[in-house]
């Protein structure tokens, strides 16, 4: 394994060197001597109920001393039958299932699902809806990354970032709640538009949130980025090369930490992402530390996108003008016979999607989130399939953890940013 020269600040008030600048000490690689004693391989089981597995993941490890020889992940402990359930739900009812799938960034899943259905039905949503969805998706990218930041910091022994991250998450909870009425299970989107338009004062609250957030990110940055313990726990841990990452299907920040500049927002832009000015952070070494850096930078870039989107937020209707897809307003429904009929038909039968199938993928907070819907012309899908980014990312953990220590396995697992609700579905 190639060693990387690591420099870190020694303490908060570093000693001054001869030239009057802070003295930096290199993190020297430690030569671990070959064991002289005989050893016995050990099989240990981590999970499914374990505080460090980020859910009900179960890892069976074969150990030689403290070194991991082999990891066998067992998943399915949270298999909830989402896809089967979706075949018994109308197109709009599935939205409520999507946010229970990834409860760390629910709005991205809400949006991705309706985008696939809209593509299948050939619906072009209004400009306002597009911008609102961009804001919501970027907001939940921050939402997901903040939780990842807090829990991962706990795994390496730092509790403070958890409290900082949840302080900010509470503000996003409040934004969710004022928009949808729920803190986590938002179900904010509908085919052809949104459940409701942004409430009064929401954009100002969102603006003030993104104005305050960088301070917290900087504080966590200050706590972790040059922290010797954090560096020692993350650098050179769980390294994967770009070729392997592609072959294993890595996407999202995990892939970009290995140096592959693949981001769905840039490569297959949707909702005018090509017109937003933002950068995609790319790592170099593909280790846990680069994954950390990528996510930290992604939060800053998301703030930039939200800032631009709030500036360009157009007026007008948020729903498309198609009575076969969008519910009429309550006033119309009570005063107009035709609206009443449409309302009745939409509620009792649901939207009718044309025969066919569509695949739509967005850049989720965990990686590329694909939605694949197949319709036979009815009001319910024949098949609703989610391409789960965490599922694919997690399948690489046997390769990443091989040869590391058990404590590194915990860090590697944390650095992948998994969510079991979506892995097991």
């Amino acid at each position, binding site marked *: 394994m190639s060693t990387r020269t690591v420099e870190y600040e020694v303490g908060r008030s570093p000693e001054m060197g001869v030239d009057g600048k802070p003295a930096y000490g290199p993190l020297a690689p430690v030569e671990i001597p070959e064991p002289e004693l005989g050893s016995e391989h050990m099989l240990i089981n981590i999970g499914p*109920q374990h*505080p460090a597995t980020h859910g009900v993941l179960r890892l069976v490890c074969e150990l030689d001393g403290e070194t991991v020889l082999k990891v066998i992940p067992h998943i*399915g402990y949270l*298999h*909830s039958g989402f896809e089967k359930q979706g075949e018994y739900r109308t197109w709009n009812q599935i939205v409520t299932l999507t946010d*229970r799938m990834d*409860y760390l960034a629910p709005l991205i899943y809400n949006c991705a699902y309706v985008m696939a259905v809209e593509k299948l039905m050939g619906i072009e949503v209004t400009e306002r809806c597009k911008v609102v969805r961009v804001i919501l998706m970027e907001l939940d990218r921050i939402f997901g990354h903040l939780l990842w930041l807090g829990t991962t910091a706990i795994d390496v022994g730092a509790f403070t970032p958890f409290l900082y991250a949840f302080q900010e998450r509470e503000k996003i909870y409040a934004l969710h709640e004022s928009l949808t009425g729920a*803190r986590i*299970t938002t179900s904010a989107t509908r085919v052809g538009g949104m459940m409701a338009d942004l409430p009064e004062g929401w954009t100002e609250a969102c603006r003030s949130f993104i104005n305050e957030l960088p301070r917290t990110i900087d504080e966590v940055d200050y706590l972790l980025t040059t922290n010797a313990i954090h560096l020692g726990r993350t650098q050179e841990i769980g390294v994967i090369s770009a070729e392997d990452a592609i072959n294993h299907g890595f996407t999202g920040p995990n892939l970009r930490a290995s140096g592959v500049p693949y981001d769905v927002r840039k490569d297959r832009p949707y909702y005018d992402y090509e017109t937003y000015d933002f950068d995609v952070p790319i790592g170099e070494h593909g280790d846990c530390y680069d994954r950390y850096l990528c996510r930290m930078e992604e939060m800053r870039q998301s703030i930039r996108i939200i800032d631009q989107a709030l500036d360009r937020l157009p007026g007008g209707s948020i729903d498309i003008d198609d009575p076969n897809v969008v519910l009429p307003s309550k006033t119309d429904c009570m005063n107009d016979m035709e609206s009443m009929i449409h309302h009745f038909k939409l509620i009792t039968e649901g939207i009718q999607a044309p025969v066919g199938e569509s695949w739509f993928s967005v850049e989720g907070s965990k990686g590329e989130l694909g939605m694949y819907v197949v319709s036979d012309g009815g009001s319910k899908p024949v098949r609703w399939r989610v391409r789960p980014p965490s599922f694919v990312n997690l399948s690489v953990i046997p390769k990443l953890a091989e040869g590391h220590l058990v404590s590194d396995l915990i860090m590697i697992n944390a650095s992948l940013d998994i969510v079991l609700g979506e892995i097991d579905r």
Partner: protein
Amino acid sequence: MGMKETESTTPIDAPGAPQAGTPLPGGGTSARPEGSGGLFGSGGPTFLTTRLDWVINWSRRNSLWPMPFGTACCAIEMMASAASNYDLARFGMERMSFSPRQADVLICAGRVPYKLAPVLRRIYDQMMQPKWVISMGACASSGGIFDNYSMVQGIDTIVPVDVYIPGCPPRPEGLIYGLMMVQEKIREERLSDHTVNRAEDPLAAGHPRASAPEIEGLTGPFGNSTRQNRLSGLVRTSRISRPDDRRP
């Protein structure tokens, strides 16, 4: 001094009774008139055991160590409850015990598929008595929106549940309220019922709590959610009255 008048009809004649004015752990003083009162009264809980109940229940309910069995969305709200805004530590419950051996209350937060059911049962069996179980959220309580092939339709088919918290997911306030309901339930417990309430049946370990016909009844459409209040065994669910906690 907050003295209470005792009913003089209670036959108390054993020797060694606390003298009037003796300070007691509850902060009050013995209300017995001189010459009466005793440890071993015939019939019913005696004066001293009642006060011991109070002390033990007080200490138990104010340092509950939860075992967070978090699986899905509700686990995130549970984390939010423990974080700075809601701060479970105010109620003496911030010490999340990830080992079931040292835990008092099992918070089952999130959906439980059949694949996870033996894990839940094992964790419950591993916990020491006295133990309480909170079923947090709609999925844990009744299967929620997941009425399909893989989901347990309410964890009360697997383990006995003390408090159900509705919501999808419940807000942190809901979880805190549920934990306070557990406190309320502990407050009502009596040591004299302990052998009945807290007996461990080693043969029950690893088996579903409910019998097969009961599971069928519970898991029918809308079955579990309508039966939960009766199953929970809560004496009062309407309000939380905590007069004792106000005393020093």
